[in-house]
Every structure is written in structure tokens, then in C-alpha cells.
């Protein structure tokens, strides 16, 4: 019965979606506040209906309703409760419903956030913004109704009252906490980008293309950025701990699909500052947020259409075509609105100099957008090359690793140069006061790094040297900013330096939160440099009692073990680990063998990871014989990953900075 209620709710939400779009359009056009209110209520109604449908599906999971097709595909009676609930986004049709539900939550929040504001000022911008939100919702609603080919309704039952004895269950690889939270985090990040996009469209539709739409959606943009940052990192962290290849980023199409909206969102967060301060880039900002939004859909298109095979790959389905169609139609709509409002989108100011903060922002944007396009080009290369040469080809990880280095280093430099260069035009005074010391210290650090690496026998340390130089330059530049500001505050308020620092951040959370993000970026770069550039990998076949060496570490395989758990068996070996000849403990890499009735066992690598400061020793095992004895051979792969913890620390600092920045209240400007 519950499933039928959920299905009915989905069908009804088609009506509430159409209602919202229709009444908002007509109400805003004819200036009829009652119609607008009715449209807003319809957005709330959609939220309630989709919540009912989502709840009904979760109910199906929890009660093991194996007459429902989707439940059978992703859940099973033995699955722990947490993974029964997270099974909601385990596969396509459920994840579409989940996506839709998050969209309706966003829509309801936008209604609620702007409720009082609308009353006070008779403002209609938020109402305009609800139209694109409702349109995107309707697109997803139609997908989950199951009425079109390629997707089925996640609440559908098997035909003829069939009931399966048990569900297939979720892939054991996905049954870990970070996999439970990685996909929804990304979804939340992507969906939050819909709101600033909707405000951009609302601004175009209403003709109020000033900074108002940016300021009023600022928190959404920043929220999305923070959540995407966390989501992408969770994915990398999961891959690192679970997949046994010792890395956290492989430029897989799905990773790229999550990374590209992040890059565009980051570009947008920067370029809006110019519009606020100097009334430039009105058109560019609208284009940029449109692009960022479209890339969230494009990611789904790439991963779900099956046109590109990937580690994650979700098999071929027609759904990619619908996404592509929606992307094209909605982009055409935005372009139409832009042409309609062309005259109002002119900038009030022009770039005055190539060396100015404005130019730094422009360069930043060019680099972010350029990187996105290169990554897109590489990701789509299999399709492009087939279209051009009739020969399918693809680019390996090396392509991405190499193309991002130079733009990446330029961006790192800008992380420090941007905040200290003066507006309009750089002056000698500005250069001497702000740039001199950071540059000198940065260059000296680079030279020292060069010497250090040369001594260690590294023959081509150029990128590491540039990375360290730029990183130190940025840190000195930004710490100097904090120092100067805090000292000034402390002097003015006659208080201690630390109090001054606290006051400084508190009074200008957006600016100094941003600087903290920049510090996090520097830390992240150092981590990436170390872990991607200087890892060691040794493979060996060992039997009990034998040992192998990795860098300064010596590992001796001294024993094996096997333990039984509820739905799997854990088997592995015990290594004695010594560093420079000194014993420091044991590590226990293993494999998990999951039972599956009628299908034998499925095993997964359970790497052993041990932290030494910020470096990791990482052991993964190959196939394991049962009950390992004296002569049995075990295949062992050992990584030494330097500075890998620095990657996670860097992201944590970025997130802290983001939270500080988002705490600043958005002002509503009066301009049009």
C-alpha cells in the first residue's frame, strides 16, 4: 500500500510542478500577488509530495518489501539498517528520486528564506528564481514517474504480484560509512548550485541584473562549494582506504564530473566579487553560474549514458539523452534571456591595467574555466576522437596530471598575489610593501628545496621547486595580511595581538575566511606534490617468515589469521614493521570474503594503513590461499605515501575557512 501512495504522490507532483510554473509566470507577468502566492505554495506542495514518495521508498527498504523491484536490486534482508537506508541512492532510479527530493528541499527553503523579505518590500526576485527551480524539479519528476523509456519508477512493484525471496544486496565495496555519505554529499553540493543559477535566471527574467541576485544566493553558492569540497574528498578518501591501489584520485570520468562543477563554482565565487566591487562582469557571472549548473547535469549525462566507460560506470541507458536534451533546451532558454536583457548587462567599468586585482581575478577565471574545458576535452576524448578520426581513443591519467600542472601552479601563485595586489593598477609602493618579502622568501625556499632534492638524487625537481616557492610566497603574503590587520586592530582597540586577530576575522568573515581557504589550498598543494610525486611502490611475493623493503621500512610477514564475522570472513597476514632497523609494530592487511547464496564468495581488499607523522605506509594483499601455511605464497603490494595526511589537513582547513566565510550575513543591496 505504501508504495502505491508514494507512486500517487509522484504523479500528483507533476500537477503541483506545473501549477508552480504556471502560476508564478502568470502571477509575475500580471502582477497578481495571489497567483504568485499560489505558485509558491505549489513549490511547497511538491516538496511534501516528493517527501511522501521518498519516505515510502525508505519504508520499503526498512520493511524488506521484496515485491518492489528497486528494493530487490539494492537491498537484502541481511543488509545493516544504515545501508538499507543509503540504498536509496544505490542505483539510478532511486538516486534520481533522492536528487529530486533534495531539489524540492532547496525549493522549500528558498520559499521560506524569502517569505518575510517578500512581504516587507514587495520584492519578486525570489519568486522569479522559483520558476527555474520548479522547471528543473519537473524535469526530474517526469524522469521518476517511470512513464518514459529508460528509467523506471523506483516505487514500482514487479508485474503480476511477483515477490522475490530476498534482495540482491548492495555491493560490499559500497558498504562503508564514507561510501554511505560520499554520494549524498555530492548531490547536496550539486543541487545547491541550482539556487544561484535560478537567481541568475530570475535576475534576467525580472531585469534586475545588479548584484542583488548574487548577494541573495551567496550563501547557497558558498554552501555548495563547501559541501562539494567535502564530497569530492570523501570519495578520494574512500578510494584510498578501500580500493587497494594506494591513491586517491585517478581522473576517472566520474571524478572529473564532480570536479568540473567545483572548478566552475570556485571561479564564480571569485568573479562575483568584481561585480560587487566594480560593477563589471555582469554577463560573465550569469554565464559562469549557468555553466556550473549545466556541468552538474553534464556529469550525470557522462556517467549515466554509458558513452564513456569508467571505474564507477553505471550502465548504458537512455537517460543520458534526456539530460543532454534538458541541458541544451535550458541553455538555449538562458541565452534567449541574455539577448533579451543585453543592454542592461553592460559593465560600468573597464579593466584599467594588466597588473591589478581585477586582472588577477580575470586570470583566475580564465584558468579555472580553461582547466574545466581541458578536463572536459580529455574526459570526452573517446567520443570526440571517434567522431573526428573514426578511431576510438582515450587519454590516460598522465594526460590530466600533465595538463593541470602549469595552470595549477599559476593558480597557486594567484592564491597569494590576488589578495595583496591593489585594485585598478599596481603601484611601486604596493609592490614594495606587499610583494617584496613574500617573493624573496618564496624564491629562497625554492632554492633550498632544489638543493635538498638534488642532494637526494632527484634529477628533475622543477615542478616541486616551483610548487614550494609559490606555496611559501602565498603563505608569507597571507600571514602578513593577517599580521598587519591584527596589529592594527589591537592598536586601535588597545588590546592584545591575539584579540586583535580574533576581532579582525570576526569583523570581516568573508575576507579572512577566504584567506583561510587560501591557506588550506597551499597545504593541499603540498600534500598533492608529496603524495603524487614522491610515493614509493614495491611488489613482492612472500611466504611466512620472508621480508621485503620499501624505502626505510622493512616488513616481515610473520603470521596469518582468519576470523569469521556476521556476513563475511576476514583473512590476512601479520607484518612486523621496522624502520631503519628498529622494530615499530605490526600491520595486518587483509581481504574480506562476503558470502552470497548460490554465488560463492566475493572478496575485497582491506588494506592496512599506518600513519608515520604525515606519511603513510600502505599494504594491500592479492589473492589469498585458505589457511596460509609455511610454503604458501602471498602477493603483497606496499606503498609509501609521503605527505598524504597533508592532503586531508589541507581540505579540512579549506572547509573551516569556508564555514567562517559563510557565517557573514548577506546584505541585500538596494541597487537594481
Amino acid at each position, binding site marked *: 500500500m505504501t508504495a502505491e501512495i508514494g507512486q500517487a504522490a509522484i504523479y500528483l507532483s507533476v500537477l503541483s510542478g506545473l501549477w508552480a510554473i504556471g502560476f508564478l509566470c502568470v502571477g509575475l507577468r500580471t502582477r497578481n500577488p495571489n497567483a504568485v502566492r499560489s505558485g509558491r505554495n505549489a513549490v511547497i506542495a511538491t516538496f511534501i509530495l516528493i517527501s511522501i514518495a521518498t519516505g515510502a521508498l525508505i519504508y520499503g527498504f526498512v520493511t524488506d518489501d521484496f515485491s518492489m523491484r528497486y528494493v*530487490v536490486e539494492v537491498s537484502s534482508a541481511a543488509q545493516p539498517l544504515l545501508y538499507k537506508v543509503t540504498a536509496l541512492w544505490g*542505483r539510478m532510479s532511486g538516486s534520481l528520486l533522492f536528487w529530486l527530493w533534495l531539489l524540492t528541499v532547496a525549493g522549500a527553503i528558498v520559499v521560506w528564506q524569502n517569505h518575510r523579505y517578500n512581504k516587507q518590500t514587495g520584492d519578486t526576485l525570489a519568486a522569479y528564481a522559483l520558476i527555474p527551480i520548479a522547471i528543473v524539479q519537473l524535469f526530474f519528476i517526469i524522469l521518476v514517474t517511470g512513464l518514459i523509456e529508460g528509467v523506471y519508477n523506483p516505487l514500482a512493484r514487479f508485474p503480476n504480484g511477483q515477490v522475490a525471496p530476498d534482495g540482491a544486496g548492495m555491493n560490499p565495496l559500497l558498504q562503508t560509512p564514507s561510501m554511505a555519505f560520499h554520494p549524498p554529499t555530492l548531490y547536496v553540493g550539486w543541487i545547491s548550485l541550482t539556487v544561484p543559477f535560478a537567481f541568475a535566471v530570475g535576475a534576467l527574467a525580472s531585469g534586475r541584473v545588479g548584484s542583488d541576485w548574487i548577494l541573495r544566493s551567496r550563501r547557497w553558492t558558498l554552501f555548495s562549494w563547501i559541501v562539494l569540497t567535502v564530497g569530492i574528498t570523501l570519495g578520494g578518501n574512500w578510494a584510498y582506504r578501500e580500493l587497494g591501489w594506494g591513491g586517491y584520485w585517478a581522473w576517472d570520468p566520474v571524478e572529473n564530473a564532480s570536479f568540473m562543477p567545483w572548478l566552475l563554482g570556485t571561479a564564480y565565487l571569485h568573479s562575483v566579487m568584481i561585480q560587487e566591487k566594480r560593477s563589471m562582469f555582469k554577463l560573465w557571472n550569469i554565464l559562469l553560474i549557468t555553466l556550473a549548473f549545466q556541468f552538474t547535469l553534464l556529469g550525470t549525462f557522462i556517467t549515466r549514458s554509458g558513452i564513456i566507460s569508467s571505474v564507477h*560506470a553505471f550502465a548504458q541507458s537512455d537517460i543520458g539523452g534526456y539530460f543532454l536534451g534538458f541541458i541544451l533546451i535550458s541553455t538555449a532558454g538562458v541565452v534567449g534571456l541574455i539577448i533579451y536583457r543585453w543592454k542592461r548587462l553592460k559593465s560600468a567599468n573597464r579593466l584599467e591595467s594588466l597588473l591589478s586585482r581585477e586582472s588577477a581575478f580575470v586570470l583566475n577565471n580564465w584558468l579555472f574555466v580553461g582547466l574545466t574545458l581541458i578536463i572536459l576535452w580529455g574526459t570526452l576524448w573517446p567520443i570526440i576522437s571517434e567522431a573526428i578520426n573514426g578511431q576510438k581513443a*582515450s587519454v590516460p591519467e598522465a594526460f590530466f596530471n600533465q595538463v593541470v600542472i602549469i595552470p595549477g601552479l599559476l593558480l597557486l601563485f594567484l592564491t597569494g598575489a590576488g589578495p595583496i595586489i591593489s585594485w585598478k593598477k599596481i603601484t611601486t609602493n604596493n609592490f614594495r610593501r606587499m610583494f617584496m618579502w613574500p617573493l624573496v622568501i618564496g624564491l629562497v625556499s625554492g632554492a633550498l628545496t632544489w638543493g635538498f632534492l638534488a642532494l637526494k638524487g632527484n634529477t628533475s625537481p622543477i615542478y616541486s621547486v616551483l610548487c614550494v616557492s609559490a606555496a611559501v610566497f602565498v603563505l608569507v603574503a597571507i600571514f602578513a595580511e593577517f599580521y598587519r590587520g591584527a596589529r592594527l586592530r589591537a592598536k586601535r582597540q588597545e588590546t592584545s595581538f591575539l584579540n586583535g586577530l580574533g576581532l579582525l576575522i570576526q569583523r570581516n568573515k568573508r575576507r579572512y575566511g577566504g584567506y583561510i581557504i587560501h591557506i588550506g589550498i597551499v597545504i593541499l598543494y603540498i600534500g598533492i606534490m608529496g603524495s603524487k610525486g614522491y610515493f614509493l611502490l614495491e611488489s613482492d611475493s612472500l611466504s611466512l617468515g620472508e621480508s621485503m623493503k620499501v624505502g626505510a621500512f622493512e616488513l616481515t610477514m610473520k603470521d596469518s589469521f582468519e576470523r569469521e564475522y556476521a556476513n563475511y570472513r576476514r583473512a590476512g597476514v601479520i607484518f612486523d614493521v621496522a624502520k631503519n632497523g628498529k622494530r615499530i609494530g605490526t600491520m595486518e592487511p587483509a581481504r574480506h570474503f562476503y558470502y*552470497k547464496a548460490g554465488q560463492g564468495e566475493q572478496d575485497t581488499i582491506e588494506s592496512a594503513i599506518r600513519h608515520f607523522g604525515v606519511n603513510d605506509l600502505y599494504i594491500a594483499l592479492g589473492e589469498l590461499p585458505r589457511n596460509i601455511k609455511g610454503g604458501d605464497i602471498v602477493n603483497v603490494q606496499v606503498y609509501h605515501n609521503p605527505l598524504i595526511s597533508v592532503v586531508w589537513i589541507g581540505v579540512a582547513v579549506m572547509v573551516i575557512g569556508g564555514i567562517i566565510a559563510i557565517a557573514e550575513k548577506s546584505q541585500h543591496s538596494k541597487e537594481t
Partner: protein
Amino acid sequence: MQKQRRLKIIAASLVLLSGMVFLGYAMLKKTSVRHFTPALLVADQGKVDDQLVQVDGLISEGSSEWDAANFKLTFAVRDRESAATVNVIYKDRLKPDNFVDGGSVFVEGRYDASENLIVATKLMTKCASKYEGAESAIPTDETSYISQ
């Protein structure tokens, strides 16, 4: 003055733009790997000798051999539609999960035409049916890849 400044800005943008395009193009040229089915690879043998290739096919039944002592996996990739096969060696790397007879496999590595052999640097398997339920009568809509 105004005009000169605009020119400078346009020139700088062009330099940056062409730099990015060049970077993308040059790296693509350098790293792009051609994609084959076993049948096409065997047919094209002479032209792709000693080149990096990608091959997509099925793990030929009974061909795979795991030499634990030498940390070496050997097997043959079979074409989906014809009898063509290509041999593969994968050394010093863990055998990917879900490596089963008849399963889908994706291989990247250098091709030696004289021996019809790929020395693989990357191996991906696809688990098409393992989790798709004991009730295989029920159609499902997705599969997943596990990379190594």
C-alpha cells in the same frame, strides 16, 4: 591610451587562450591511446607494433594463469564477436577484483605484434552479474567497474 590598453589586454588574453589550447592539444597528442577490440588489433597488427593500446573484450575461458611466485598474471582477451584473441601479461600488480572467466576486461599497455602480446600497465574488470541478484530473471539496469 585607452586603445593601447585594450590592445594589451586582448593580446594577453590571446596568449593565455592559445597557451591553454596548445597545452591541451600537445598533451593529447602525446598521451592519447588508441582503443581496439581484439579483432581490430589483430587485423591492424603491423601498424600498432610497439605502441600503447587499449583493448576491450572478454577474458578468454581457461586462459588465465596466476603465477603467485613471480607476481604475474597471464591471460587472453577474446573478441566479443569473433574468434580473435590477444595475449596479456600483467606483472607486479595485484589481480583486480572480479577477474573471472568470460568477464569483461579492459586492458591498457604496450603491444608486441610479433608475439600478439600486450604488456599491460592497467587492468580493469567489470562485474556485470555478480551482484545482480540470485534472481537473475529480474532485469537490472546497472553494472559497475572495479579498477586496479
